[in-house]
């Protein structure tokens, strides 16, 4: 299985390459990608440097152009595709039919991957994207159970990549507008969820309050782990209870599923976190490299090592990890 790793900066890219990534994925410095955060991503020259570095070490570079263009911004998306082609990247990761259409028509030899933002949860959908744009790979949303992943893989006309580790999106990616309902930005339109520009922290007598565009997302007592106010992970009132009505802050960690994913024919596993630090990237990539190598050496006797779990737990949201939808509990 190919290990696909996030790089939000040149230093993260280098660390990922050096720690054992088979491929790194990056985005350009604008709203054409789903991690459009201040201080992140690559302008042309940095992208070239990153590409050179990765290529020297035999590591592929994918470029995510995976938000949805609106009429006024189309030239940016078009330029992003052109730039990626000029750079000679290994593949584009796209979601918008318009971007896929343009890329496949203009550069028929440039490999296309369907982004998780394309929201493909079944093989009929994959057929659509293969027939229309010749995609070679699709990244599956984090909403599928292992059984469902296996079912999609069985009839998939393209290679599949699944999320292995990182922040846990519990909504079908590409079909979640919660963020633009509370703020004016969403992953689809702007490449941002619960954007930092709208976040406000305030220490009050009731506790530390986290607000998003003035809406109270959570309130933390002293000593409580106060995470980023991603709105689906807030504590809200429903009925007579105040609780994580939608989801708790946890990270996805599927290291124990490596044998099952391999058996299902999954071609690549993806580490989430272009917005995270080089230290995070180093830790997660190195641990996952070890786990995959360990599996490859002796598939029959694969066992998750405590050390891996401990290392990954250090960088997990809320310090807890879950198998998310991959296990039955959710289904």
């Amino acid at each position, binding site marked *: 299985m190919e290990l696909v790793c996030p790089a939000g900066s040149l230093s993260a890219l280098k660390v990922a390459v050096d720690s054992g990534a088979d491929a790194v994925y990056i985005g350009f410095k604008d709203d054409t990608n789903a991690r459009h955060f201040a201080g992140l991503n690559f302008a042309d020259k940095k992208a070239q440097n990153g590409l050179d570095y990765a290529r020297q070490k035999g590591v592929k570079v994918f470029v995510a152009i995976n938000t949805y263009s609106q009429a006024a911004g189309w030239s940016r998306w078009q330029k992003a595709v052109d730039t990626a082609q000029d750079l000679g990247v290994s593949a584009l990761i796209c979601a918008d*039919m318009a971007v896929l259409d343009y890329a496949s028509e203009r550069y028929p030899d440039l490999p296309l991957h369907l982004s998780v933002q394309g929201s493909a949860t079944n093989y009929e959908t994959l057929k659509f994207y293969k027939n229309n744009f010749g995609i070679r790979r699709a990244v599956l949303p984090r909403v599928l159970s292992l059984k469902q992943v296996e079912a999609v893989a069985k009839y998939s006309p393209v290679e599949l990549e699944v999320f292995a580790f990182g922040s846990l999106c519990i909504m079908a990616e590409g079909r979640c507008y919660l963020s633009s309902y509370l703020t004016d930005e969403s992953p689809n339109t702007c490449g941002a969820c619960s954007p930092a520009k709208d976040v406000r922290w305030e220490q009050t007598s009731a506790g530390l309050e986290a607000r998003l565009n003035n809406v109270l997302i959570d309130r933390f007592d002293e000593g409580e782990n106060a995470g980023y106010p991603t709105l689906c992970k807030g504590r809200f009132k429903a009925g007579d209870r105040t609780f994580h009505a939608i989801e708790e802050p946890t990270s996805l960690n599927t290291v124990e599923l490596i044998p099952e994913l391999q058996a299902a024919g999954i071609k690549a596993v993806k580490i989430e976190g272009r917005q995270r630090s080089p230290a995070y990237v180093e830790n997660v990539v190195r641990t996952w490299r070890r786990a995959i190598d360990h599996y490859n050496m002796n598939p029959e006797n694969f066992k998750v090592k405590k050390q891996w779990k401990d290392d990954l737990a250090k960088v997990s949201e809320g310090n807890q990890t879950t198998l998310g939808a991959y296990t039955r509990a959710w289904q």
Partner: protein
Amino acid sequence: MKLSLGPILYYWTKQKTLEFYEQAASSDVDIIYLGETVCSKRRELSAQDWIDLAKSLSQSGKQIVLSTLTLLAAESELKVLRKLCSNGDIMVEANDMAGVQLMSELGVPFVSGPAINVYNARALKVMKRQGVSRWVMPVELGRDTLQDLLSDAKEMGVLEGLETEVYAYGRLPLAYSARCFTARYYDLPKDNCQLKCIEHPEGISVHSQEDDELFSLNGIQTMSGRTYNLEGELSTMQKMGVDIARISPEAGITFEKVDQFRKAINGSAQTIALAEAECNGYWFKAPGMDQVISAD
């Protein structure tokens, strides 16, 4: 401009559903969408029941459209989708690319629903190639984007034989998950959810700790807490070339809204002001939950 009734997004009892469509048949809408779009466990009406109901509603002289599931993963769900798509008679609304793929294989014109990500004219052109004869704008988009999109689409020659529909009333479908939030609310596992949705014909209200109404939980779907209402924008829509305004069913109030919208379309409405629990932000490129007062 025509008026449509969207599919019922909530889980209502069979009786309540049938009564609703009896009323719909004699109401002032032009198009009726029906079918289960949220959760395949909701089986008060089976796929065959929906098809039969659709066929019997065709007698009303209204256009009937079968809406299909939005998040499909299981083979059993694809099976139901195939049955609906190949019904051979009633028009189909695809809410997932799987539906688009099936309809395009069948070569039958269909509707691209609000959960299909058409954000620009080029994407619409791709959909037109698949046989789309009507598209519903994704709910997070608004007036200016639509204006630009329609003008680009016109230039590309995509608009001919293509109708545009806007989701204009009702709680907004904002997200779909693997998780069932209604089951979570009851501390039940999803595979033993006891079909609790049926006890919440308007979803489960979620408030912030400061009592702002934020969301409504509807099984695996998260909806807006406030009710989207573009009644005041109908004349603008008409001028822009929108063909259809969609009213999404809300318990108890749907047909009153149908009459109000009809009056507004005919230009005979009184002043239109939003109620406190309503919003229109998306239409004005503002946060969806906002109430924006139109400058017109």
